[in-house]
């Protein structure tokens, strides 16, 4: 009885301590979030366009992504700052009646695959892991610059995803899924590492709004083509090609952008207001609670176009001791060989390890375990243990005799 009361008394103290810890953590995290300066200038725009479906009947997802790619390039974002991920190849598909051409309208006026299309991740390279690596920046050393998202703290990033999705997930390649908490986690890491100033997420799938329901990083604006429980529909079927060629949400987005050129400054709120639920057959929902600025004053070219902050160079920098270049000795600069791996492999640290190792039991145990669990040594370990079992067996039989 006394014991019970004592344990009950200890409980509130434990709960109190837990509460204090939680508050401390929250305060710490809030301080970290608010210390990110909003005074950085907007210096460049990036776009990550992802199409996650494969197979011929998902032609419209590819056409969606390529249409948006064309729009974004027309408004000024260069190829160097676009990461285009296409999960399958429709232009050169055996079932394509118009080889090397991808259309987003049955009038076939526009060939989306016509010129200057640079696909960074194609086919089976479009996986959840690669997508998250692009967002967080954790690539192997050999991945080329064109496949990396090299944004910095002054970048505005547009992330467009299309494909098949559902409640809190997006399907990749018909075999794996991207969960909404994975996306939220990646965005949180991007924010911590200051890889974007503002982020606009556009999702065109079924139940698209659920994909960004778990986001909680500031500076993120998200737009989905449908809400939970609703489907997103395709716009029309092209009887010549044989499949649906564009989705409704993307079709109306493109209709909005075709009227613009790169000098215009239509605002984001006009983009959001241009969606008509009757025409879309779903409710386009956008989430602005994490975004500080008002949507009327943000031009769409902040995300979809290119901005280059420029400063005029006032004067040349000359020194009076001007080098007479004709007579100057030329220092022949030997080209340094490009090192194969960029990662710093710390080789000389092994020596230091050996010097510092103390001969304690824990150290010995750790070394035995580490030696025994490397792949080459596992076979040796198994052999040794099998051999050890034999004498044990002999001893036990002799004991019981």
């Amino acid at each position, binding site marked *: 009885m006394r014991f019970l009361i004592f344990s009950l008394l200890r409980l509130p103290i434990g709960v109190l301590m837990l509460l204090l810890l939680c508050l401390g953590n929250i305060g710490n995290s809030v301080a970290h979030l608010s210390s990110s300066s909003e005074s950085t200038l907007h210096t460049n725009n990036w776009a990550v366009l992802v199409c996650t479906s494969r197979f011929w009947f998902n032609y419209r997802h590819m056409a969606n992504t390529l249409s948006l790619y064309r729009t974004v390039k027309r408004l000024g974002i260069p190829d160097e700052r676009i990461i285009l991920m296409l999960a399958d190849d429709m232009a050169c598909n055996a079932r394509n009646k118009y080889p090397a051409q991808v259309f987003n309208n049955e009038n076939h006026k526009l060939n989306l695959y016509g010129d200057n299309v640079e696909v960074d991740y194609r086919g089976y390279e479009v996986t959840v892991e690669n997508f998250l*690596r692009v967002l967080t920046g954790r690539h*192997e*050393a050999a991945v080329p610059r064109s496949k*990396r998202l090299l944004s910095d703290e002054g970048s505005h990033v547009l992330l467009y995803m299309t494909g098949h999705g559902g409640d809190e997930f997006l399907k990749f390649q018909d075999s794996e899924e991207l969960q909404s908490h994975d996306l939220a986690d990646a965005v949180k890491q991007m924010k911590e590492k200051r890889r974007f100033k503002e982020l606009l997420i556009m999702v065109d799938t079924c139940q698209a709004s659920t994909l960004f329901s778990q986001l909680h990083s500031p500076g993120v604006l998200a737009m989905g083509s449908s809400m939970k429980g609703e489907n997103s529909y395709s716009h029309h079927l092209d009887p010549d090609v044989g499949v649906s060629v564009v989705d409704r949400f993307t079709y109306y987005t493109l209709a909005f952008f075709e009227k613009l050129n790169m000098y215009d400054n239509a605002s984001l709120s006009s983009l959001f207001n241009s969606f008509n639920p009757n025409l879309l057959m779903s409710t386009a929902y956008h989430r602005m609670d994490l975004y500080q600025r008002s949507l009327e004053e943000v031009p769409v070219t902040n995300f979809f176009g290119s901005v280059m902050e420029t400063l005029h160079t006032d004067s*040349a920098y000359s*020194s009076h001791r001007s080098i007479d270049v004709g007579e100057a000795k*030329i*220092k022949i600069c030997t080209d340094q060989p490009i090192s194969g791996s960029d990662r710093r492999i710390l080789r000389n640290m092994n020596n230091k390890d050996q010097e510092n190792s103390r001969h304690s039991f824990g150290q010995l145990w750790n070394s035995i375990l580490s030696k025994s669990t490397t792949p080459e040594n596992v076979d040796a370990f198994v052999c040794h243990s099998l051999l050890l079992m034999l004498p044990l067996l002999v001893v*036990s039989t002799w004991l019981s005799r």
Partner: protein
Amino acid sequence: MAEISESPLQTSEEKSPVTQMSEPHESDPDFDPKTMRKAKPGLKRLILSLSVLFSFILGFPILWKSIEIYRAPLPFRSIESFSAQIESNPLLFPCQFQAIFVGFDSKSFGADELESAIEKRMLELSSKSSQCGTCNDNYTVSVVVDSRSHCVETKNMKPSCSWKCGPINKFDSIGKLKDNDEEADELLQSMLGSCYDSGYGGKVYSVVVVNGDEEVRAVVGKYRHAWITGTISEEEAVSRIAEIFVKVFVNGGKEEGSIQGEFMPVGADGKIVLSFSLLNADPRDWVYDWNFHEVGEVLVHPVIEALQPIANVTVESQVLYYTPKSSLSFWDDRHGSHIFSTKDLPFFVNSNEWHLDTSAAAGGRSKILQFVVYIPSAKECPLQLILPNGERSETNGFISPMWGGVVVWNPKSCVKNSDTKDIVRNMISPQDLQKVFEVVLGQLRQLFGLKSTNLYVGLSGTSILLGSERGFTEWELDVLSRHHTCFNLQTCATTLGSLSRLVQSLPRMIIKDEIGKQVKFSLEAAKLAQSNASVGIYDASAVSSRQSRSLAEDAFFHPSIMSISYYSFEHCFAVYSPFFLPVLMHVILAALREWKRYKQENWKYLAWKTKAKITS
């Protein structure tokens, strides 16, 4: 074996009913085989089953350790304390200042009053909160008044650095100061040069005020000194000196010393690649080539050497063809050329046709700065940039922070050689190329946040800033080192903090040894940078801070930290339980059963023993 040990029991049990059936034995009348036994129960069965159980129990920690996630231990507390320290105490550097008055009467110009006046004025000019990367509060100001008769010094500077009072021919040579700035700079450097040998305690910045007859003229040299000549009153001298100290030497000529991220173009691995491109807009009109290897290397190489402490710089160059710009221009009669204005600048770079970023030399985390020399086509020649106030631009160039710069170079004659069919390759003459590279150098300075002009306009007057053939003067390199040290340490602290938060939030993620080592070395380099900064060695602290930042970024961006690829506890349980649970259950049950049986038999034996004792 069970049978063997059982059989004496069985035989005894068999015997007893036999004897009971034959005749009741006198020696054991109360022997009840169900509750008693004559022989001590054997231990072999119990030992066997207990040994099997014991080996299982012994094996359990080995199993646990073998399926443990390997996580290299990260020093979370030191990371946290380092982050807190960087945030709370902005990094400040020790500096020393020296003002030397030559040719003034020491009675009217008292050294001590001058010193206090200068210090007061400097306090007024510097901003209230100390910015990271500036001088700390206990900087020393010392004043020397050197007249022909005698010379007064306030504080003892380092013995190598004291102004040598006395020699008379010095005044004549200083009289030449008004004529040739370069020679004056070298002269002062020879006099004050010994101040710059040792770096301890911070660098010494000097202003020499020379009494003269003409109007006041202030020049800041290439090293760490400036000079003011002319008829100057005490207050004006004090205010000018304080302004030069605070605004020029400490803040680098910028309005405030704050560090803006868009003027820190160093990549995360401490490297910058300068990529020079010559763009021929329409090769059908004319084709220009440049001798980059001879000319550019000579001009750019000293700059690369000067920037060594701040970044590791490499250079590459290319020539491109068919690269029109994407903005429009129109003909203007007044200027006699095609005009584009500053409003067109954001749209000048045509990223569809200008394939600039094709370098394989730059790794994923280096920073590439593009320097473009644009040669317009015949229909846009000559192409001139007009400023908002209507004037022509002298340089025809502009920069975009963190991207690079563009210069438009017009060929001498805008007549295209339509008669010849074959392509004539023209070379840009070395003199023209030198002018272009001077603009490019100015643009590089702008990208680092410094001004490309040679004038500093302050509250108390204008000073001329001498240009250096290395692109950056010594005091500018000091400013850059200080700012970059500060920025790198801040980035390192935030990166390590993010990494530790990430690692702690995912307790079952594998952390490789390499990451642990990188974090450790990053913290060590950061401590070294801080200690160097407190002592006053600016460039060594810049180098260490750059290392710490690159190691921290390597650790954070290590490709193995992918949060989707870690083992959850349910996974482990699901894999191992079908192997071990059934066997374990049987072993435990067997041990328990044997134990119970042993206790029972023992109790039976004891009961017989007591009975036997009672009867005997």
